[in-house]
C-alpha cells in the first residue's frame, strides 16, 4: 500500500490572516468543540444551583426575614431582594469557573495554547477567543437564571431583561483579569485556592447579594463598593425591582466596563508574555 501524495506549499486561495474579530472566532472554536462533550452536565448545574439557592435562602430563610420586616430591603420580600443579587453573583462564579483552571490547563497541562500559538493566531486572538467562550457560557447561565427567577415569581419589573447583559458584563469584569492572572502562572495552580478562599467567597457573601451593604460596619463598606460584584448586584437589583435610574445605571456600567477593559489590556499583555517568550 502506498501512501497518498501530499500537497505541500501549494498556492492557497483563502485568506490566511484575518482581522482580530475573525481570528478570535477561530480561537473560540476548540472550546466549542470541547463543550459539545460536556454541555449537558453544565446545564444541570446551571439549573440546579439557582433552584437550590432561591428555594433554601429565598423561600426558606426568606420566611424568617420577611417576618422580621423588610424595610431595609426596600420593602420587598427577601426572595425578590435576593434573586437579582444572586444573578450577578452567579455570573461571577461562572466567570471564575471558566477562567482559572481552563486557562491554566490550556497553557500548562495540555499546552493547547502553545499549539494554537504556532498557527496564525496571535496571543491576543487566543485570549479573546477564550473570552468569547466565557461570554457564551455567561449568556447561557444568565438566561437560565432569569427564567428560574421568573418561575419563582422573584421579578418586579420587565427591566429585569436588561439585567442579563449587566450580569454578563459583571462576569467579564472578573474573567478578563483572572485570565490574565491564570495564564501567567508558571509552576502550579496553588494561587487559585487563595483566590477562591480570600477573593471569591468573601465577595460572594459581602457584596450585597444576601443583605444590603448598608448593614456592614461603615469602615468596611468602601471595600464592597470597589468590588465589581457590588456594582453588578446593585444594578441587577435596581433593574429587577424597577427602581433603576439612568445616572446610577450608567455609573455602574461604566465601572464594570473599565474593570473589564483593564483586564482586557492586561490579558493581551500577559498572554503575549507567556506565549511569545
Amino acid at each position, binding site marked *: 500500500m502506498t*501512501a*497518498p*501524495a*501530499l*500537497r*505541500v*506549499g*501549494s498556492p*492557497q486561495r*483563502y*485568506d*490566511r*490572516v*484575518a482581522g482580530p474579530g*475573525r*481570528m478570535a472566532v*477561530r*480561537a473560540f*472554536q*476548540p472550546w466549542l*468543540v*470541547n463543550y459539545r*462533550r460536556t454541555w449537558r452536565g453544565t446545564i444541570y448545574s446551571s439549573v440546579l444551583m439557582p433552584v437550590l439557592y432561591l428555594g433554601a435562602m429565598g423561600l426558606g430563610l426568606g420566611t424568617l426575614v420577611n417576618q422580621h420586616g423588610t424595610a431595609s430591603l426596600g420593602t420587598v420580600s427577601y426572595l425578590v431582594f435576593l434573586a437579582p443579587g444572586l444573578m450577578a453573583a452567579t455570573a461571577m462564579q461562572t466567570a471564575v469557573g471558566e477562567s482559572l483552571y481552563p486557562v491554566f490547563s490550556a497553557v500548562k497541562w*495540555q*499546552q*493547547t495554547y*502553545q*499549539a*494554537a*500559538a*504556532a*498557527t*496564525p*493566531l*496571535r496571543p491576543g486572538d487566543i485570549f479573546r477567543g477564550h473570552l468569547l467562550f466565557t461570554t457564551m457560557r455567561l449568556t447561557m447561565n444568565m438566561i437560565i437564571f432569569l427564567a428560574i427567577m421568573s418561575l419563582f415569581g422573584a421579578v418586579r419589573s420587565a427591566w429585569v431583561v436588561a439585567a442579563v447583559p449587566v450580569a454578563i458584563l459583571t462576569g467579564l469584569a472578573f474573567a478578563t483579569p483572572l485570565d490574565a492572572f491564570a495564564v501567567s502562572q508558571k509552576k502550579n495552580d496553588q494561587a487559585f485556592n487563595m483566590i477562591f478562599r480570600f477573593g471569591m467567597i468573601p465577595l460572594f457573601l459581602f457584596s450585597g447579594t444576601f443583605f444590603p451593604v448598608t448593614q456592614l460596619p461603615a469602615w468596611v463598606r468602601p471595600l464592597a463598593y470597589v468590588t465589581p460584584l457590588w456594582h453588578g448586584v446593585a444594578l441587577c437589583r435596581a433593574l429587577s425591582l424597577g427602581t433603576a435610574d439612568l445616572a446610577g445605571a450608567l455609573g455602574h456600567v461604566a465601572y464594570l466596563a473599565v474593570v473589564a477593559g483593564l483586564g482586557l489590556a492586561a490579558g493581551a499583555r500577559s498572554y503575549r508574555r507567556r*506565549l*511569545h*517568550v
Partner: protein
Amino acid sequence: MGCPLGVPKYPAGPVIHFELSQALGKVSDVPDPDALIRASGLTKRFGQFTAVDGIDFELRRGEAFGFLGPNGAGKSSTMRMIGCVSPPTGGELTILGLNPVTQGAAIRARLGVVPQEDTLDVELTVRENLLVYGRYFGLSRQVIAERTARLLEFVQLSERANDHVEPLSGGMKRRLTIARSLINEPEILILDEPTTGLDPQARHVVWDRLFRLKQQGVTLILTTHYMDEAEQLCDRLVVMDGGKIAAEGSPRELIDTYSSREVLELRFSTFEHDQAAEKLTAVPADRIEVLADRVLLYVDDGDAAMAGVRGLALEPLTSLVRRSTLEDVFLRLTGRRLEDG
C-alpha cells in the same frame, strides 16, 4: 487578477542585479534566491543567559536541514524564533522573505510545526484535533475533511480517526502531531526533536514518514540530539553547542572534514584502561579519544590499527571497527558526547 497580458511576470531586475554583483566580484554575497530562511547573527537572550549566540544559516527550498547538538545547545530556542513565537533579541532573521516580528502571523500561516511536546488536545478525538487546528488557519470544514482523510492515511492513523487521543501510544501521538502540522500544506515543516522519547520501533516509523515527506519535496528543518537521525534525514546540518554553530555541512562532508574514515573502538578492563590508553599512543592514528569506558582510535584502516594494538601485546575485552559517524564529529568539535547534554 495577475499582471496585464503581455507583461512578463518577472522584470529583468534580478538579472541586472546579478551582473552588477558579478562585475563587483561579490557573487557569493548575492542572497540565495531560493533561501526560505536567512539568519545572520541571530541571538536569543533570556535575562543574563544567552541561549542562541549569534548564529548564521540559510535554509534552501526542498532541503532537509538539521540542528544537531546536545540538550541546552540552543536548538529549541532557534526553532521557536523560526516558528515566530519567540522574538529574536539580536541579529537578523528573514523567513519566506518576511519579518518574523512584524509579520509573524502571515509567516506562521505558511509553516508547519511539530513541537517537542505534542500539545494535542487529549480530550478530543484524532479527527477533532485536526479539525480544530485546521480552523485556526481559517480552512473550511470541507477542505479540512479532505485533508484529514489524506493525512491520517499518510501517518497510518485512519483506523483511529474517531478515537480519543488520550489512550494513543507515544508514537501514534507523534504521528498525529506530524499530520496536524501538515493540515495547512506548509512551505516549511519545523520539527523539534521529532523522535525524542519514542521507542526504537516507533522512531523508525516516524523516520520513514519524514523520509517520504522529504522525497515529496517538503522543506524540513529539524533539531535532534540523535546522530543517526541527523544522518538519515538531513541533507545539510549544523552542529550546535553552547548557543553557537560549531560546524556546517552535509553529514558526509562533516565526517570527512572532522573525522577519519574508520574508528577502532577498544574496551579494556577497568584497571587496565588508563595504562592501555597510554600505550596506545604508539599506534599510528589521526587522533586518540580516551572516554570513561572506551578508547577510540581515529584511523584510515581499522583492521591495520587492530594489528598494531595486538603488536603492543594489549588484549582489549572487546574491539570494534566501524565507520566514523556524526557522533565522532561532535566529540571532535566539542570534546563531549551528544548524550552528555
